[in-house]
C-alpha cells in the first residue's frame, strides 16, 4: 500500500499536468514536493514528446529498466504503451530480468541499446567497447537521449519503490503533448 497519503492540494499548473498524464497514483504521491515536482513533470514532458528516439526503442529501454530495478509499477504503466508501439509477447518476455534479450527478435540497434541499458543499470557503468558499438549505431543526440531515458526511469523506479506506490486500478498513463 502506498506509504503516504496522496496530495490533494496541487498548484493549477501541477494539477493540469497530472491530469493530462492520467492522474496516476505516482504523481499524486510525489506532488507533495511542489515546485521541484513541477520541474520533474516538465522534464518528463520533454522526454516523452521528443521524437529523436523512436517510441518503440524508448519503451523497450523503459520496460527493461523497470525489470532491472524491480519496479512492477513502471511495468504496469509502460507495458500497454510498449504494446501500442508494436512490441508483442515475444519481445516483452525477452525483456524480463531473467529473460534472454537475444530471444526477442530485436534489431541490432535495439539489442545493443538493451545490452547497454542492462550493463549500466546493473553495474552503474558501461565498458568502452559497448559504448563504442552504441555510437556506431546511433548518432550522439540519440545516444544521449537513450542515456537520459535510462537516467529518468531508473531514478523514477527508486522513488516508486521507496513510496511503494499502489498500481492504479482505474487510471492509465497517457502521453503528454
Amino acid at each position, binding site marked *: 500500500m502506498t*506509504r*503516504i*497519503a496522496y496530495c490533494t492540494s496541487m498548484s493549477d499548473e501541477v494539477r493540469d499536468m497530472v491530469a493530462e498524464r492520467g492522474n496516476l497514483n505516482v504523481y499524486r*504521491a*510525489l*506532488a*507533495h*514536493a*511542489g*515546485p*521541484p*515536482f*513541477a*520541474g*520533474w513533470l*516538465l*522534464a*518528463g*514532458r*520533454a*522526454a516523452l514528446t*521528443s*521524437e*529523436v528516439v523512436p517510441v518503440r526503442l524508448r519503451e523497450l529501454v523503459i520496460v527493461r529498466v523497470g525489470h532491472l*530495478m*524491480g519496479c512492477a509499477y513502471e511495468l504496469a504503466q509502460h507495458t500497454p504503451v510498449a504494446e501500442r508501439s508494436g512490441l508483442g509477447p515475444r519481445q516483452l518476455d525477452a525483456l524480463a530480468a531473467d529473460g534472454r534479450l537475444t530471444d526477442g527478435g530485436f534489431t541490432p540497434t535495439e539489442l545493443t541499446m538493451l545490452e*547497454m541499458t542492462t550493463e*549500466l*543499470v546493473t553495474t*552503474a*557503468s*558501461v565498458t*568502452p567497447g559497448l*559504448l563504442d558499438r552504441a*555510437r556506431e549505431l546511433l548518432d*550522439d*543526440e540519440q*545516444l*544521449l*537521449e537513450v*542515456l*537520459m531515458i*535510462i*537516467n*529518468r526511469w*531508473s*531514478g*523514477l*523506479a*527508486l*522513488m516508486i*519503490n*521507496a*513510496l*511503494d506506490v499502489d498500481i492504479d486500478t482505474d487510471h492509465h498513463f497517457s502521453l503528454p503533448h
Partner: protein
Amino acid sequence: MSRIPLTPVESVTPTARDFMRRRGELNVFRLLAGAPKVFDGWTTMVDAQLDSHTFSPRLRELVILRIAHLRHCAYEIAQHTDLARDAGVSDAEISALSVEGPVPGLAEPESTVLAFVGELCVTGTVTQATFSAARAVLGEAALTELLLLVSLYYGLALVLNAAEPGIDDHVRLVTPS
C-alpha cells in the same frame, strides 16, 4: 576525454546558454546540451531543485555526495566534494561519506536521512522502518522532495559514468548558499 563529444558553449541554444551562465559552464552541461530536445526540460527540473530552500545546503550536499560515492561517479564526487566543503561539511565527514556501510559521525536528522538515501541507492528500495524514520524527521513534503533529489543524482551518475566527460578543472556548479 569525453567518450561522447561535448558541445561548444558557443553552439548551445539560447536557453541552454542562459542556464550555463547561471549555473556554470560545466562539462556535464556541455555533454547533455548535445540532446537539445530534452536538455531544457531537464535544466528546468535542476533549477527547481536548486532554487528550493527545503534543505539546507549542508544537508543537500551530504545527500548528493553520498549518492556520488555509492554510484562510484568520479564526476559528481569531484564537483560535490568542493560544494560540500563550502556548505560546511568537514574533511572527516567527507571521508565518512565514502564508506561502504552506514555513515558514522552524523547527528540527527542527517543520520536518518543518509541512512534512507544509502539503503535506497544500494538496494533499490527501503524497508517500512527506514521509510517511517525518514518521514518522521522530514514530513511528507520534504521526503518526496528528497526522493526527487536522489532520483536526479542517482540517474545522472549513470549518464556520467557512461559518457565520462572530463572533470572540470576549476568551474563548479553555482548553487544557492
